[in-house]
Each structure stands twice: as structure tokens, then as C-alpha cells.
């Protein structure tokens, strides 16, 4: 069995086993499916996706969980356009239908939330209304109507969400269903709703169900032990079942970053699949979901019987051509998803558009030009030089080479990758290096000349093509300013410098350091023994991972931040609560609402933001995880010489790749 084999889903047949699952994109206009959605899905269909499930639409106006959440009654034209755009490539197109229930928000609707019982939303504390019989009927009817609309729009079917953010799961779970009326029979609502949906669909369209099979709350929630029976009971209504996990206390479980292992639901999927097959044979297909980004893992899931299909959503955000590349036998050409969640996770008040750090065109298909997929005539663009082989320089070199340039890529270091290699040397960040490894491999495959260990000076630029515009500076960042006093004997090390000392980092999938290497690494840290303070004015992932790294080596760690919450900026990637839990479990001392004032040999002095009082924290060294400055080697070089990435302004991989690509496309 291969990922590429077709498979029947009830009355329809998918051309292969790879699903592009439903996810928030913020691509909508108002509450409809937009032209941006159409282009986004069409690109995945073009790249070979077997089944495309469109972003969830609310089946009733009582549900408006985020500003751009599609509403089924406004989605029909958009669904039709997506179907028309995707069907020529062979993909099945499914509409996701749902209702977030008590996990929604009233901020857009200005109405109360509806839920089975009055269980407050965990983050916002909003108390929902306990649904009345008429409310239940309205949602059930809404599903039937939406299903009929989906069929009328030319879609192949619909998928009901009983996963992470869903009213259906809230009825199924003892965590959220505390009713004493007929819906105390917890599967009743799901059954009513699935029957109405099937009635709306007719017999010629596909009905799927996305079901949370582990709520990670065994005291009252759905557990893996119950899930087989639950899935078997509900599977009789559907053609396929997607096995997911997570609930009100574990919202990040839908799409965790690298802190959860890849394929974390595969065991669950296997056990649910066997229960479903026992009850229904192979007429109900089981789809595995959960951080499956590698083709080999997806193939393994099919071979091991964990699933009949595999959802690879982020993998196809990172590379829309994933299936096409597998079909062409070039799996190594698939741009890896590194599960960083930095650009693709968009449940955020600011309504960011779904995208990818490595594939900036994702989500921007209607506006961004696409680099050629295969090299055009060599030499068409003449010679091009890129100084700096971090993500900006690598992407620039890759795309310039695809466009037919003869590219020379120069870096002062003895490896390509720039600061990404160092930054990926701390726990939970290891996978980032896969992106620069892929970029390097692509550059080498395309014949980019890579010259390492060569420090370029301003005087060299003329010879390197500065005058004809075929030169890019992508030389990265330098240490930032320090806004605190440092006494002469004090040890202050920048986070980047600390992590660079650990290079080359041992590459390990699990993120754990192997025994035996530990002492070696401890030596390489080069810090005086004893407690370490980490100063974090940013609240991003760096300080948290450095603190974890040091705590993992037995160092007492003090993490100091001016914020109310450690890792303040991590909510976008879903790691905010998990990061705080990991730090607590690692015994890291958190000093919140404190400003670093002075570093001495044996302690650091911090100021309480609200009282102005100074406190001393015993520490023999300080790691500065603050902002960095642009590399200033070429500060005086004329602005007509192009620049990209951190040497413009130190930011993240996403901006570096985007700017590198833009330059290469501008040639």
C-alpha cells in the first residue's frame, strides 16, 4: 500500500491517500470563502493533494469563533469556486462543517455562546448559555442545510468537526456535557447531527467525521479506552473518520509545535482503526492526523495499519508539491515542514494570514510570484553573488539558480546555515536546521558554487558584482546593545554565542541529549559553575529554550522578564502554556515583572517594575537573550547594494527567506 494508491471514500474515490486537512487560514473576506482561499487550495490540488478539506464553516449564525471564520450560508459561491479550481487536478474537495460551541467568543456576534452545559471557556472564562431544545434543533438543521449547500456547490462531501474546537465534542464529553435531559445521552446530539447531515448530502456524497479520541482529561473526558467504542458507534454514519486528540484544556494539541513528537496520534489512530474495522469492516476509512510531516512516516502509518489515509496539512503548507514530488520519486526535494508553527498557526486576534517560514508564497498565492519549479536555461541571468549563507542567502541563491543564474554563495563560516544552526541548538528547536539543510541540498543540486570560510570585506564588493546589481548581502546579525550595567568581573554571554559554542549540535529527533555527550556539552558551555540568570526582554522561544538547556544540565536557572508571563510571545505558536509548564517542571525560577539593572560576578540586580525596589538574584553568569543588531560590516556600503534578512534588521527565518526570494525574483 502506498500513499499514491487511490482509495474509495464511500461513493467517491480519492486519487491518493494524502489529505490537506481543515485549518484556519484568515484568507476569508467577511465570512465567505474568498479568491485567496481558492488559490491556496488550488495550488495544493495542483501539487497532487488527494483530499482537500476546506476551512471549517459555521453551520449556524450563533457561532462566530474568530473574525474570518466562514459561515456556511455565505460559503456556497466560494465552495463552488474551490471545487472548480481543484477538480481538474483530481482532488476530492470536502467542506468542513462545525460549531465551536462554548469554545467560541461573543466578541464578534455580540451574542451569548451556546454549549451543552455552563462550562466556562478555559482561557476567556466566558460562561455559555446552556442550549435549549430549540437551539439544538437549529444547529442540527443548520448542518443539514449546509450539507445540501455543499453538494449544490459541487463539493464531494462534508466533514463534521467533533475535534478540538467543537460543540459536537462538547456534547460527547463528560467534561462539558453535564445535562440531565435527553442529551445526557452524550452521543445523541452527534447522532442527530450526522443523520441530518447525511440527509442533506444524499447518498452520492462523502460524509466524514473528525473525532477527538483522547481529551487528555481522563477524569471526565473521552479517553483512548472509550474512543474505540465511541468511534465505532458514530462510524456507521460516515465514510471516513479522522482520529484527532485534544480538548478544552489542551487546545494546542490540534497542531502542536516540535515540543510534541511527530506522529503523536499514530498509536491512537491504530487502536481506533481496529475498533472501527471490527464494527464496520473497511467501509469506513480511518485518517491519521497529528504532526505527520515526513513522507516516510506517512507511508509507515499506512503499512502499519494505523490508517487508510494520512493528513499532512503543514507539510503541504510548506511544500504544496509534496505529492507530486513523491510521485516523481524525489522525496528529498520536498521542502520540510519543521513544525515551528511560526507562520501557519493563525488563531490570533491580529488575523495573520496562513503562511510558512520556508515557503512564503503559501497564503499569498494571489499576490506573490512563484519561483520556477525546475531550472530555466542556465546562464539566462548571468553571474550572481550572494554573501552570507543563512536562510536569506540560501533562498536567494536557490531561486536565482532556478531562474538561470550562475550563483556563487560565500560565507565566512565553515558551514552554511548562518545563525539557524546555532539557534537550533537548544531544546525544542532542533528541527529548524532541517530547513537550511534542505536549502543547502537544493543549492548544491542546482549547481550553486558554495565558497565557505571566506570573509568578504567592503573592498571586495566591486569585484563581486556590486556595480551591476547582481550582488546580495545577507550577512546576518551581531550582538545587541546592553541596557544594563556590567561590572568588570561579571560573565555575560549572548544567547547566540552560548549556542554557537555547542556547534556542531548533535542532531536528534527527540530533542533529548544523549548521555555521554552531556559532560562534553557542559564543558563547551564555558560558563562558570553554579546558577545562571537568563535575561529575556523579548518573550520569544530563545530564552525559554536556553533556560531549558541549562536546567537540563543541572544548572539552577533564573529566568528574568519584564513581562507578566514568561514566553509572552509564544501564544501564536501554541507553546505559551506548554513552555511555562516545562519551565516549572524543570525547576527554573521565574522572575517576572523585573528589569535587569546590573550584572555582577556573583549576582544580578533586578528592579521590580511596580515598586521600583531592587532585588539581587545569586547567579555566576548571565545569558542575554535580548534583541540583536544588524551586522555592520557593510554599513557604509552604498544603499544601491541589495540586502536581505537580519543584516537589514534582525528578525526571524520567515522574513529572511522572503527577502532572499524577493531579491532573486527581482533580478
Amino acid at each position, binding site marked *: 500500500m502506498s500513499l499514491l494508491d487511490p482509495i474509495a471514500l464511500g461513493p467517491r474515490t480519492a486519487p491518493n491517500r494524502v489529505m490537506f486537512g481543515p485549518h484556519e487560514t484568515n484568507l476569508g473576506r467577511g465570512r465567505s470563502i474568498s479568491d485567496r482561499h481558492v488559490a491556496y487550495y488550488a495550488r495544493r490540488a495542483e501539487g497532487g493533494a488527494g483530499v482537500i478539506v476546506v476551512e471549517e464553516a459555521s453551520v449556524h449564525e450563533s457561532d462566530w469563533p474568530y473574525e474570518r471564520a466562514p459561515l456556511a450560508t455565505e460559503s456556497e459561491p466560494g465552495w463552488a469556486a474551490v471545487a472548480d479550481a481543484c477538480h481538474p487536478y483530481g482532488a476530492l474537495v470536502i467542506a468542513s462543517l462545525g460549531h465551536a460551541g462554548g469554545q467560541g467568543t461573543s466578541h464578534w456576534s455580540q451574542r451569548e455562546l451556546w454549549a451543552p452545559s455552563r462550562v466556562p471557556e478555559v482561557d476567556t472564562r466566558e460562561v455559555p448559555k446552556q442550549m435549549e431544545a430549540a437551539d439544538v434543533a437549529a444547529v442540527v438543521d443548520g448542518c443539514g442545510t449546509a450539507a445540501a449547500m455543499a453538494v449544490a456547490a459541487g463539493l464531494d462531501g462534508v466533514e463534521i468537526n467533533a475535534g478540538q474546537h467543537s460543540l459536537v465534542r462538547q456534547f460527547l464529553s463528560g467534561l462539558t456535557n453535564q445535562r440531565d435531559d435527553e442529551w445526557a445521552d452524550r452521543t445523541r446530539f452527534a447522532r442527530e447531527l450526522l443523520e441530518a447531515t447525511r440527509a442533506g448530502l444524499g447518498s452520492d456524497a462523502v460524509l466524514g467525521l473528525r473525532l477527538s479520541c483522547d481529551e487528555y482529561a481522563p477524569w471526565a473526558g473521552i479517553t483512548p479506552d472509550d474512543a474505540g467504542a465511541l468511534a465505532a458507534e458514530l462510524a456507521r454514519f460516515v465514510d471516513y473518520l479522522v482520529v484527532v486528540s485534544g480538548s478544552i484544556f489542551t487546545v494546542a494539541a490540534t497542531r502542536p509545535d516540535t515540543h510534541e513528537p511527530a506522529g503523536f496520534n499514530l498509536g491512537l489512530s491504530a487502536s481506533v482503526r481496529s475498533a472501527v474495522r471490527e464494527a464496520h469492516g473497511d467501509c469506513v476509512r480511518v485518517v491519521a492526523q497529528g504532526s505527520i510531516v515526513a513522507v516516510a512516516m506517512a507511508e509507515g502509518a499506512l503499512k502499519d495499519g494505523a490508517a487508510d489515509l494520512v493528513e499532512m496539512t503543514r507539510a503541504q503548507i510548506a511544500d504544496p508539491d509534496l505529492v507530486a514530488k513523491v510521485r516523481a520519486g524525489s522525496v528529498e526535494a520536498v521542502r520540510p515542514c519543521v513544525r515551528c508553527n511560526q507562520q501557519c498557526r493563525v488563531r490570533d486576534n491580529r488575523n*495573520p494570514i496562513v503562511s510558512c517560514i520556508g515557503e512564503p508564497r503559501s497564503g499569498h498565492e494571489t499576490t506573490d510570484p512563484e519561483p520556477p519549479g525546475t531550472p530555466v536555461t542556465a546562464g539566462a541571468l548571468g553571474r550572481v553573488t550572494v554573501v552570507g549563507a543563512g536562510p536569506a542567502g540560501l533562498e536567494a541563491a536557490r531561486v536565482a539558480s532556478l531562474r538561470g543564474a550562475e550563483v556563487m554563495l560565500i560565507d565566512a563560516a565553515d558551514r552554511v546555515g548562518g545563525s539557524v544552526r546555532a539557534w537550533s541548538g537548544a531544546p525544542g528547536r532542533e528541527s529548524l536546521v532541517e530547513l537550511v539543510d534542505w536549502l543547502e541540498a537544493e543549492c548544491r543540486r542546482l549547481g550553486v558554487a558554495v565558497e565557505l570560510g571566506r570573509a568578504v570585506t567592503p573592498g571586495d564588493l566591486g569585484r563581486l558584482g556590486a556595480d551591476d546589481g547582481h550582488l546580495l548581502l545577507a550577512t546576518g546579525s551581531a550582538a545587541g546593545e546592553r541596557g544594563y550595567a556590567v561590572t568588570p568581573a561579571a560573565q555575560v554571554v549572548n544567547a547566540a554565542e552560548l549556542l554557537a559554542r555547542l556547534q556542531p549540535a548533535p542532531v536528534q529527533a527527540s530533542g533529548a541529549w544523549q548521555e555521554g555527550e552531556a559532560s562534553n556539552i557542559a564543558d563547551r558551555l564555558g560558563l562558570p559553575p553554579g546558577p545562571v540568570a537568563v535575561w529575556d526582554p523579548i518573550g520569544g522561544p530563545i530564552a525559554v529554550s536556553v533556560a531549558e538547556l541549562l536546567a537540563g544540565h543541572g544548572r539552577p536557572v533564573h529566568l528574568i522578564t519584564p513581562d507578566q508571563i514568561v514566553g509572552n510571545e509564544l501564544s501564536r505558536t501554541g507553546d505559551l502554556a506548554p513552555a511555562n509548564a516545562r519551565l516549572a517542571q524543570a525547576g527554573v525560577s521565574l522572575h517576572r515583572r523585573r528589569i535587569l539593572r546590573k550584572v555582577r560576578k556573583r549576582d544580578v540586580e533586578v528592579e521590580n517594575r*511596580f515598586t521600583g525596589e531592587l532585588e539581587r538574584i545569586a547567579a555566576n553568569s548571565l545569558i542575554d537573550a535580548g534583541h540583536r543588531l544588524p551586522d555592520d560590516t557593510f554599513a557604509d556600503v552604498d544603499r544601491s547594494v541589495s540586502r536581505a534578512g537580519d543584516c537589514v534588521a534582525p528578525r526571524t527565518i520567515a522574513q529572511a527567506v522572503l527577502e532572499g526570494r524577493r531579491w532573486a525574483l527581482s533580478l
Partner: protein
Amino acid sequence: MVSERLLWSPLRLGPVTLRNRVVFSAHLTNYAADGKPSPQHAAYYAERAAGGAGLIITEEHSTHPTDWPYEKLIHGFNRDVIPGYRAITEAVHAHRTPIFAQINHNGGQASSMYTRLPVWAPSPVADPLFREVPKAIDRAEIDEIIAGYATVAANCAEGGFDGIELQCSHSSIVRGFLSPATNRRTDDYGGSLANRARLLLQLVSAVRSAIGPDLALGVRLCGDELIEGGTTIDDAVEVAQMVEATGAVDYLNTSIGVATASLYMIEASMHIPPGYASFIPSALREVVDLPVVGVGRFKDPLQAERALAEGHCDLVGVVRGQIADGHFAAKSRAGQVEAVRLCLSCNQECVGRMGLNRWLGCIENPRTGREAEGVGVRRPVAIGRRVLVAGGGPGGLQAAIAAARNGHQVTLCERHELTGGSVRLAASVPNRAEFGDLVRNQFAEATRLGVRIETGVTLDAEGVASRRPDVVVVATGSRPARPYWAPGDEGRIVDVTDVLSGAAAPSGRVLVLDELGFHHATSVAELLADRGCQVEVVTPGMVVGQDLGVTLDLETWWIRAESKGIVQTTELVPMGWEGDTLSLLHHPTGAMVERRVDWVVLAVPAAPADELYLELAERGVEVHRVGDAVAPRRAHAAVVDGERVGAAL
């Protein structure tokens, strides 16, 4: 009898004459769509023009594509904004009110999220909110910024605006250049104040050239950034003099704080005294002859008049006051001060929605943000029905107001001796007193509209039937709910409402449990600390009173809490009570901790008091319910429910 002589006197700002001194100053609304002004903008500003404002200054219009810090920003640099500008200015001019456009580039106080371009700023100093290192712009880019201002000013002139205001105060690239905290340049745009002000003066010159002599030009300056190493009043005074010396500027506006660092002092909540920023216009006015606008929680006309009379300023910015009541000026001018729906400075639905990318509203004015949809407009009914409202909290009062407005005969019964519901309790804490204006305003409006209000009357289904109403609105609120772990007979575990009503008087060691994340726990904690209790506030969340951050109350809460010795502990979930000991689970680690205390005060979700509704529904009576009786939420939800249900009868 109108006593505010100065406030209602006309004033010339260069080529523009204002009928009075009440300014609806610039503020974000999030009404824009796709970078363009919307019909809601026009309706919103027109309402304040109709309501008598002397001058309206719109929210900012961005001057350059590198500036896009929040999603719903007007991209003034695109010419497709001009039809929207015309719609706004025509709607406002219909009420013979001048309207200026504020134009701005937010500089480093932004991110690349929407632009996908580097953020531009004087120096690579990351903003404390956006935390993105900006690109230090070069000379050519400075020229581009200046050209952008000129273009946008010309677009605004073409769109029919009467003047332009340059926001150089709290979120601006001009502020970035002016402030030593963000300007580290060594060229002739950095160092001395004259250098730091160079961009401002170039912009003044470029914009004046673009708009010619027929439009007014104003500059808004920050008098104190309230940040380390930032601009203070001495610099501001000197810059004001430089601006006046150009001869190209017609007025000065003022501001305090940095939007991305000290916002809680820009849009101060009720915990900051009114008029707190008047020292700024006062200081500027001493050295310049230009008219100066003062801002800072001006809530009522008398207070505004006093600021003018005392010489602090020549005009008064009343923003939230006119968000709460679009007819603030007209009512005040007509001597009907008691009819003004006074702003509470609660920040819940205006300021509190801005940072969350939501449209601007008002806790007590359901029409705000919905003007274009016609919310709150009187729609007389042919035959008035007899409406009975059960419950006189914010939901019941608003339902009564909306129904009476349309001509129904409304009776409202409240079981207590006073209306106000749980809002009265919330406002009983000294520093939350202004919150009580919500229900005082509603009571006054309901009375004016002829609602018959009966207090001390508890309605049951029989009582409702005996009154023979055509329709019933149940607004019976909520009642405290006991968490599973709290023994029902334990008298030392009490609800917040028990403490506020005086039914319980905790003393000694008190643990306040915050599961609501708003003012409930923090208010009662302060009250008890003031009474000498040793108070610890505990929450399962990551921050006590998490939503105080949204209303800009978190900073001042922390300052007061620290000074009162209130301890705050996070990530603890109560699990059981034994004797005098509460056991709690530290959920990130699974560790159990204990607290021996004399009292536990609960700020936990309440239960709806929905019996009357359910019984009436069962009997087939036409009945609607609003507010906490549907689901216990915050006051705004009750007001919105009441307006919707009352207006639809």
C-alpha cells in the same frame, strides 16, 4: 442655564472657525476594511457632528506602505481612500462641523506582520510591544517618508477635510525621531533636539506646501513619554516653540505616554484622576500663542470649562465622553447635563476592543460602532404593547429603554429597593465608583422615556400573569454558585457579592480565588486589604485579573496591590477544603500546596437566575430573557441583549 461660557465660545484655528471648544480627538476605531474608510466611519463621525462637537479629528491615515501596525488601518497613501474620505467629510459637513484628518507613520511601533516589509524607524531599537527590530532608515528613505506625508495630506484635502493633524505624539515615526529613547542616530537627524526635531519640521513644511493656506494644520506632541530616557515636558515645550516658529501651523494638540509602552496613561481608566494630563497643554500654552488642545479623561462639561477657565488649554479633547454619548456637546450646550450619558472610563468596549482588533463600541451605548446599521434609532410602533420587564440591572433597564423608545408601555419591576443589579455592587468599591454611572445613566434615560419603575417588587409567574402584560422580558440576573469543592455549610467560604453587599465581613487571613479574570477578585482584595486583612489572590490562570490588561487597569492594579501587600499567586486550582485549610493543585507540575486561612472569597462563575423565564416559557407566555439570566457575563452583554430584545418587541 448654561454656565460654560468658554466651552461654547467659537475659536479660530487658522482658516477654520470652530463653533465651540469640544474636540472629538483622533482615536482608533477598527472600522476600516481593506485599508479604506467604511460607511461606518461616516456614520460614526456624523453622529458626533450632529451631536454638537466643535471639531472632529479622524483616526490616523497611514502615510506609507511600510506602516501597517494593526490590521484595520486606513492606507491614506492609496488614492482609493478618497471616495471614503468624501463620504465622511460630506456627512460631517452636513452638520456644519469641521473635520480634520490625522496623518501618521507609526515608525518602529509596528511589526512586519501585514506589510511583509522591514519596519522603519530612526534606529534599530525594538519597540517594547511589537518587539521587532526595525530598519534604521537612510536619507533616501527619510525623503520617501516626507513625500508620503505630502501625498496623503493632498489626498485628504481632495477628500474634503478642513485640516490635517500630524500625530507626533504617542505612536509615530516623528515621536521616534524626537525621543532620545528611540533615536540613536549620529547624523543630522540625531543628537541635539534641533536634529531630532528636523523630520517634524520638514514634515510641517512639506504638508503645508501640499495643502496650501486654506486648510488648518495641527501638530500633536507628547508632553511626557513616561518611559526611561524618553521625552519629557521640557523637550516638548521647546519643540512646541520650534513648531510655532515655522508659522505654518495653526494649533497644537497634546498627549501623554507612548502607545506601545505606557498606554494605560494615554487612555486612562477610572483609576487615574480626571485632568491628569493638563500640565502638558498648560506648559505649552505658557510659551506659545497657538491654540492648544488638552486631553485626559474630560468627562463632563463643567470639568472641561474649568480647564479652559484655569488656562490649561484652549480646546478640550472629549473622546470617550462622545463615544458614550454622541450628543454630549448638544445636550450640555442646551443645559441638559443630567441627560448626558456620562462615560465610565471603564475602557471595556472602546479601548478594550482596539488592541484585540475588534470594532470600537461602548459598554453603555449599544449604538456606538453600529451607527451605520441604525442600532438605537427610534422606530415608533403603530400600537404600543404592554411590556413587563422583570429585573432592573443593566439588561432589564436597557430592554425597558429600547422598548419605551419605540412607544411601548413599559413597566420594570426590581426586587431590591434600588435598580442597578450587580453593577451597583461592583461600583460599591471606592475606586470603581464611576462604574455605577452605567445604571444611573440608564435609570435616568428610562425615567425620561416614561418607563414605570417599581422597586421592592419580586415577580413570580403568578405575579406576572396578574399584571396581564403582552410580553415579558426576564432580566433576573444571576446568583452565586458554589464550586464542587466548597462545603455548602462552610460559612467562611463566601462569594464576592457577599463581601460587597456586607453580608460577610472577612477578617484576618483571606484567600481570594479569581476564576473570572476581571475586577471582581481584585476589587474585593483591595477592599479587604484596606480593612486590614492579609490578602492573597489565587488564580488557575497565568495572571490574576488577566482582562485588566485589556482595559489598561493591570499596571495600576499591580502598583496598588504591591503597596497594599496583596500577594498574587498563579496556576493554582482549588481541590478541597478541610478545617481551615484549602488544598490547591499547581497544575503545571502536579504539586499540591495548602493555604491555612480564615476566609475564602470566591470570584467564580455565577449561575443564571432563570427560573422565572423557564416557567413563563413553559406556560406559553411570550417571554424573552436578557443578560445574566441567559448566561452570566459582563455588563456589556446585558446592555446589548437588552437593546436587541427591547428594540425588537
